[in-house]
């Protein structure tokens, strides 16, 4: 069937900020969909609050609304734009939930908007646990014994009916948030209460546990003519009980016979038809009892999901793009397969390699959160790897994670753990479970014993054991033989090691040599990787899409071109501090190279991203971002240079080693990067330019640190050198705290010293992004932080242009920026963090690379920074590119951060110098207040227009909070406050009713929150004791979803926003209109 011509204008809803369970994959799917629909001639309207996405680039859609993804706001956009259809299945759970809300509230009917892809009935049937269960019963498929609970009475009822352990799954939440496993009634009640609160529908499902069963997923597509295909099967190494987003997963399924696989396939197709997903991609999750093959259905998502992104990258089949085309009426046999060109999309990809996805965790950033994997997702990113066998794939995946593991090994030594300790660890899955398995094997435990403790399928254990055994072989080889290129026995050993996925670094550690020595021996022995194609068809057809992975095989499938070409190094797996912003920059670099007619070659390991879409760059290498893997590609492709400044710290760390290996680094030189990052060289630089930085010092021991702190006076900020995202960074107020810091964190980075800076209290922090061609500097954006200095810049809200800074100060910031850019001979992007205290400008940090704020600044000003930076690196001048003239003004943009605290119960929500946000949103409007209001709404905080404000601030903030409280009073809010604050406010003429602190008795502030008597909470603390005292209150606030702020500056901004919003409501405007 040809495409529909009755539709002209289609609305796509994105997924908003990056949060756990919803990451870049929906930028990937949304961008693909927008491109596909534009290609077909439809007018595309897009809504997404996340500025760091490619999908919100103004060129991608006809109208791009960077507005909160909130049903009321989207309704306004619909009213304004009058789209014919809404495509709800490509924006993750957020997009789907918003579409449901709009359909249920009648907005879609009122404006005649059709839901395409999946209609309301379909979505509800798939998403409502009860309807889904009934549907499965109808088609004779089994689901685990379960019950639906909407109240705590229901919970207790089912708790008596279903045998423990019971799995709790809230309906309509993503990534299983609010879910868990209960082993007794007490657990059940606690987890259920949280789940009920988090579920959009106050609905949770209690389910008989199938813990320990094998877990599988199938990615299915269906077209309007009822043609169905399976794109990919995925098998989880982690058995049921660990959320699939936290599981190590493998494609294709490894341990299913054809008979079992086809039963699963039949079930998936039957589910698609019964649920009625009209067109597009869905995913179905299965559990299989390893003892007898019994299969039950866990759930299905009637939308493109994280697994779809993985399946797309794993097979080369672009699910989101095809889903968009199916949604407008095409059938699978009408859409060509880009990869083979001669075949159509109506087939099932078959692959001849093994794909492994490994999640990346950041438990270290959330002290108090337990490193324990359950049914609620906790990972913040993932790496994918491709190998010709599982062992190679697994080890490549492990080094792709960039957490310091070169593979599944450490220095080879016999284990000294006792068996019981290992068994205990194995039984409680954690982020280091593969190492637990390895330790268990080294301790002599059998696969059977390990299986009993972990439920990991014996096939995977056998594979891991083969790696462990080869590691031992390699170890003993060096004891008897010389590891040198002249030893003929080495070549086969080396080749085997490589085919088992061992990195040069692993071999170097095993054989007590340097990585570069191993490389040189390896090359002399001609043990070199080759690059094979990802082609959807296992070489059955010729493939035209240049999407490669490395392996140690005999064939050769790459043909480096003679054209001018540049390698772009991506950012690897998402983590806190390095996420989608950097992928955005890499993708823009690729686009810019295309404009310049230069071949772009992307290297990345993150399957969620747009950069790893095979049609983003001219060539894609899906590879770990390590020195070895990257240099191999460079030696094969021989590009004229490598771009390292867009992918965050990952490629930047490779800059110097690559340069030393003779690779040309484009843009700012590695020496300049070092000058900005090396403390002493940086200080010399500032002295030369006459710029100030807070008093500071470098300590290699606690004693040194103590002396430095004494000299520069407390409070001080301490952190290990060379870190991103403020890892292990803390503000320390006294010597005792300093000592405790050293005890806790010194092992974080033993090879690097601890840096100590004077902490500038109550200073205003400013972030500046600039672009320089070595001669001219374009100050792209000056962002004033809303929170005062001391809170990590990645966690602060900020406003562009600055709204309280004196114009003279702004001029001076510009001057200093230019001075630094020129002195560092920056070619490309740079970011500077300033702090302004009492009118004095201090420089906190200079990063000669793309920053997290680059996309935000690009969106706020209409100047595509990464694009221009790429052109500058390729030799164009700023004078010619003239960014000054491209700049759009006349609106205010606010960036707000989004935090994963609801995923880590028990972790305090206070902000500090350690970055903990996973994503960001942008609010744009004509005034600061409205832009801030939008940023809050987009971040999930619906600020109240009336009601009660609770205020409890520390002594230092008591004066500052008075005008804020006054403003709330004027706005008609009732004010309640804890003792000291209430007294201070009353004395200052603000009527404030006293409420008890949590430890003062009942009813206290937490009770008021629970009873819905508090609509906004302002709570600032300093010092350890008050932090502990008020932590429970903040937990309660978070759990009950009450808007809160932990800074006076945040409170001030909120009050101003509420004031401006009163009586007006929020308007909506597209970026294209803001730029007009």
């Amino acid at each position, binding site marked *: 069937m040809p495409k529909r011509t009755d539709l002209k204008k289609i609305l796509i809803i994105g997924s908003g900020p990056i949060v756990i369970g919803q990451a870049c994959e929906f930028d990937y799917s949304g961008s693909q969909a927008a491109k596909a629909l534009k290609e077909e001639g439809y007018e595309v309207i897009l809504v997404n609050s996340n500025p760091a996405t490619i999908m919100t680039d103004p060129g991608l859609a006809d109208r791009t609304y960077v507005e909160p993804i909130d049903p009321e706001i989207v309704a306004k956009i619909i009213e304004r734009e009058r789209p014919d259809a809404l495509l709800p299945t490509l924006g993750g759970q957020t997009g789907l939930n918003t579409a449901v809300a709009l359909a249920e509230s009648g907005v879609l009917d009122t404006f005649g908007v059709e839901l395409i892809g999946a209609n309301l009935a379909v979505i509800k049937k798939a998403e409502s646990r009860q309807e889904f269960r009934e549907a499965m019963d109808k088609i004779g498929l089994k689901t685990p014994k379960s019950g639906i609970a909407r109240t705590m009475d229901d919970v207790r009822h089912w708790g008596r009916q279903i045998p423990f352990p019971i799995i709790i799954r809230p309906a309509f939440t993503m990534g299983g948030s609010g879910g868990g496993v209960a082993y007794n009634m007490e657990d059940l009640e606690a987890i259920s209460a949280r789940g009920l609160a988090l579920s959009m529908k106050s609905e949770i499902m209690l389910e008989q546990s199938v813990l320990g069963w094998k877990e599988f997923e199938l990615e299915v597509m269906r077209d309007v*003519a*009822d*043609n169905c*295909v*399976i794109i990919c*099967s995925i098998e989880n190494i982690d058995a049921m009980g660990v959320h699939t987003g936290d599981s190590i997963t493998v494609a*294709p*399924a*490894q*341990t*299913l*016979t*054809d*008979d079992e*696989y*086809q039963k699963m*396939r*039949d079930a998936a197709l039957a589910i698609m038809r019964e649920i009625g997903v009209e067109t597009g991609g869905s995913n179905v999750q299965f559990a299989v009892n*390893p*003892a*007898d*093959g019994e299969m039950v259905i866990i759930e299905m998502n009637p939308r493109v999901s994280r697994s779809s992104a993985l399946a797309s990258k794993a097979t080369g089949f672009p699910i989101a793009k095809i889903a968009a085309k199916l949604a407008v009426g095409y*059938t*699978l*046999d009408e859409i060509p397969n880009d990869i083979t060109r*001669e*075949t*159509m999309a*109506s*087939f*099932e*990809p*078959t*692959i*001849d*390699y*093994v794909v492994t996805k490994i999640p990346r965790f950041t438990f270290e950033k959330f002290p108090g959160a337990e490193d324990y994997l359950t049914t609620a997702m906790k990972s913040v990113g993932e790496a994918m790897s491709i190998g*010709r*066998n*599982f062992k190679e794939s697994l080890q490549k995946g492990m080094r792709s994670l960039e957490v310091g593991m070169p593979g599944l090994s450490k220095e080879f030594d016999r284990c000294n753990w006792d068996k019981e300790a290992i068994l205990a660890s194995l039984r409680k899955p954690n982020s280091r479970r593969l190492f637990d398995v390895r330790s268990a094997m080294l301790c002599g435990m059998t696969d059977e014993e390990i299986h009993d403790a972990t439920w990991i*399928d*014996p*096939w995977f254990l*056998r594979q891991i054991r083969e790696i462990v055994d080869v590691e031992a072989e390699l170890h003993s080889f060096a004891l008897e033989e010389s590891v040198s290129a002249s030893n003929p026995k080495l070549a086969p050993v080396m080749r085997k090691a490589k085919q088992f996925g061992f990195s040069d670094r692993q071999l170097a550690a095993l054989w007590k040599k340097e990585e570069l020595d191993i490389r040189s021996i390896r090359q002399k022995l001609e043990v070199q990787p080759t690059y*094979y194609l990802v082609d959807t*068809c*296992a*070489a*059955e*057809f*010729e493939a035209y899409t240049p999407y490669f992975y490395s392996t140690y*095989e*005999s*064939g050769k*499938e790459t043909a480096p071109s003679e054209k001018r070409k540049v390698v772009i190094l991506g950012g690897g797996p998402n983590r806190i501090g390095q996420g989608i912003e950097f992928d955005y920059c890499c993708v823009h670099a690729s686009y810019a190279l295309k404009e310049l007619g230069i071949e772009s070659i992307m290297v990345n390991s993150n399957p969620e991203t747009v950069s790893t879409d095979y049609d983003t760059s001219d060539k894609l290498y899906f590879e770990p971002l390590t020195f070895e893997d990257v240099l191999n590609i460079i030696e094969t492709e021989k590009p004229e240079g490598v771009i390292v400044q867009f992918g965050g710290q990952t490629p930047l760390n490779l800059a110097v080693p690559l340069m030393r290996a003779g690779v040309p680094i484009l843009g700012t030189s590695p020496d300049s990067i070092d000058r900005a990052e090396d403390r002493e060289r940086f200080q010399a630089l500032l002295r030369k330019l006459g710029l100030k930085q807070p008093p500071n010092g470098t300590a290699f021991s606690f004693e040194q640190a103590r002396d430095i702190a004494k000299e520069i006076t407390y409070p001080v900020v301490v952190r290990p050198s060379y870190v991103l995202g403020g890892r292990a960074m803390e503000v320390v107020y006294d010597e005792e705290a300093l000592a405790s810091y050293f005890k806790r964190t010194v092992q974080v980075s033993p090879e690097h010293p601890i840096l100590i800076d004077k902490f500038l209290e109550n200073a205003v922090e400013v972030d500046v992004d600039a672009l320089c061609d070595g001669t001219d500097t374009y100050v792209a954006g000056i962002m004033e932080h809303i929170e005062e200095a001391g809170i990590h810049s990645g966690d602060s809200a900020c406003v562009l242009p600055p709204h309280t800074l004196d114009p003279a100060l702004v001029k001076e910031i510009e001057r200093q920026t230019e001075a630094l850019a020129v002195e560092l001979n920056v070619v490309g992007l740079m970011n500077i963090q300033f702090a302004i205290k009492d009118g004095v400008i201090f420089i906190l940090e200079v990063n000669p690379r793309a920053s997290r704020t680059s996309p935000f600044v690009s969106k706020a000003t209409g100047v595509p920074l990464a694009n221009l930076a790429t052109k500058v690196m390729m030799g164009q001048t700023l004078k010619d590119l003239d960014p000054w003239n491209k700049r759009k003004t006349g609106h205010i943009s606010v960036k707000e951060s989004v935090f994963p605290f609801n995923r880590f119960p028990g972790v305090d929500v206070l902000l500090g110098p350690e970055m903990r946000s996973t994503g960001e949103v942008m609010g744009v409007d004509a005034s600061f207040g409205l832009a801030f209001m939008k940023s809050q709404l987009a971040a999930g905080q619906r600020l109240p227009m009336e009601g009660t404000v609770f205020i409890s601030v520390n002594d230092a903030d008591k004066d500052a909070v008075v005008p804020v409280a006054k403003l709330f009073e004027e706005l008609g809010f009732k004010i309640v406050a804890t003792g000291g604050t209430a007294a201070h406010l009353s004395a200052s003429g603000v009527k404030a009713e006293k409420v008890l602190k949590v430890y003062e008795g009942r009813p206290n502030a937490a009770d008021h929150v629970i009873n819905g008597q508090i609509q906004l909470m302002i709570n600032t603390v300093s010092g350890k004791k008050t932090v502990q005292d008020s932590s429970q209150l903040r937990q309660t606030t978070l759990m009950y979803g009450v808007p809160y702020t932990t800074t006076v500056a945040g409170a001030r901004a909120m009050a101003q926003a509420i004031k401006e919003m009163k009586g007006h409501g929020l308007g909506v405007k597209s970026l294209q209109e803001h730029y007009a």
Partner: protein
Amino acid sequence: MRAFLALEDGTWFEGASFTGSGRAGGEVIFNTGMTGYQEVLTDPSYTGQMVCMTYPHIGNYGVNLEDVESDRVRVASFIVKECCKTPSNWRAKESLPAYLERHGVMGIEGIDTRALTRHLRLHGAQRGIISTECSDPRDLVRQAQELPSMEGLNLADAVTPKEPYVWENGRPRIVALKPDGGYDWPGTGPRVVAFDCGIKWNILRLLVAQGLDLLVVPAFFTAEQVRKLNPESIFLSSGPGDPAALTDMVHATSLLVNDYPTAGICLGHQLLGLALGGRTYKLKFGHHGLNHPVKEIATGHIEISSQNHGFCVDLASLDNVEMTHVNLNDNTLEGFAHTKKPIIAIQYHPEAGPGPHDSRSFFVRYREMLRRELGR
């Protein structure tokens, strides 16, 4: 144990035997299915062929008692990247190496199966030799060149049973015909005589499931012998080799199709094409996999199909025949029906085993054709 695989065009690969020492020869083809190796191994259509699996891990779930398509391993040898020696599956009774060794079939691993597959795609299916006893792979190349070509090769005779049988309790049971060559049909369903030129057991299972009274006869049965059995319909099975070499069968079929509703699968499809006066040709590297899209012309519906054939019917060479199914990858003929007579055939494998179940409706279509023709 070190082993070589040599092809007739002079290419050779080094690997290791996982079934001990030995030598084997045949036509080297590749199969792109990621599951179903046990069904592949036992499918008589692979007789004379050395099958290279494109998925690199083979043997993961071992070998069980149920997933077999005939009573023994049929491939000439088995070529994989990595063979799993300790399988994991609740039904596994034996490992793949043990199974092959027990059946005396060679398995070789450590081959760059992707490089081999690309080679076959570019240069076509080739004769090859695998051997563990070889000092110079060039000797093997010469031996490969001496093997008979698949084109013109009659392999049905080699795989067909000696005597008629029925399908009972999940096994074949040999039956005796009456002295006059007649047969006492035990059931009341349509009486179907199925030629076994290398039939897969799953075809038998699914035919019986349609309520047919089924008698399976050897490929060498003549039209006269078949008529004596008093059937109501003829079924032509899948099987190995070049259909054009089966002149006796083509002749028998051409006589029978005038009098009986007839259906054919795979080789049966090709035999029907030849019997109706058409011709067949060899595909460059054949269709061997579980992911081939086939479109039913009448409805536009797409089936993801299991395929295993190296020869194809040339539609243009046939009169009074309409295409019912087409392969969407290369537009080759996948099924036809006679416009005047009750004859239907498909080139792919509706019985799956291994592969998707999308095409099982073929058996229903066959049953409906019989109902139309026979009134029951």
